[in-house]
């Protein structure tokens, strides 16, 4: 009997090539199928989450700043810029529940992703309402003490 490490029967270069090819093809197919999830979906959901909360925080900061300097008799008007799409999706900034829930919601219009940001209780003394859609870039926040 030939010693084990010198026994080269049953070894075929062609067979090895086919086996390795099959393994690699299978691996490649698996990667390809999950590539969309790994490379597109997960990063875009992370980006969306971050950007939504960025925009929510921006709104909350601006509202709090306005609240701090709001005149007894008079008005404030300010404009702000938001990106039209975030991770390829349009969205809406919704402050309609601000007075009861003390939150601003940023809602994506195509997926059901929602991020809520608190506005530190200022809505109980200053009524906040309105909805801004991302289809235009420039929006306004207005305050009028007479209304």
């Amino acid at each position: 009997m030939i010693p084990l490490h010198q026994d080269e029967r049953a070894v075929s270069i062609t067979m090895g090539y086919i086996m390795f090819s099959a393994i690699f093809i299978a691996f490649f197919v698996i990667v390809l199928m999950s590539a969309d999830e790994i490379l597109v979906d997960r990063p875009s959901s992370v980006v969306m989450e971050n950007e939504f909360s960025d925009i929510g925080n921006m709104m909350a900061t601006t509202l709090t700043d306005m609240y701090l300097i709001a005149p007894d008799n008079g008005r404030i008007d300010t404009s702000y810029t938001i990106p039209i799409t975030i991770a390829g999706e349009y969205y809406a900034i919704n402050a309609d529940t601000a007075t009861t829930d003390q939150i601003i919601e940023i809602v994506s219009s195509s997926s059901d992703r929602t991020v809520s940001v608190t506005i530190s209780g200022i809505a109980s003394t200053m009524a906040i309402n309105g909805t801004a859609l991302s289809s235009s870039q420039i929006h306004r926040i207005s305050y009028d003490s007479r209304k």
Partner: protein
Amino acid sequence: MANLKDDTRGQWILLSGLTIAISLVTVAVLLNQAAVTGYYSSNAALEFPKEQIRDLTTQTRETAQSATLLAYQLNQSSNLSVPTIITTLLENYSMQTSILYASHGETVDIRVSNVSMNTSNTTIVDSIWMNISYYDGNTFYSSEPEIIEVNA
């Protein structure tokens, strides 16, 4: 020496070159995305001129207080009434403040709308009503009137 086409040495150099090129492209793409995100997330909150507006009203309140005190003194040696002197002093203040804010690209308008006298002692000023407005292209602020109690 082998000619250029047949020379197959230097595989490691080629491979490392490719790796470095790909990683540079990746880093460049990531940095670009980070820059865009940073721009959008913080611009509006930083642009809101909270301090400028707060300074404007605080300064106007202080000036109205000191203008009143100064008006009482000037009234001793002048024929003009206290409200007239206050109005003149505050018009000067308004002019200078407008110039200062204009140098930052902001429009400021401050006017005296009413000097309200004490009902029991009509030589004493109770409050000064001022119209303050501010505009910097993005944000409009108006306080009309800002009622300033000056009866210390």
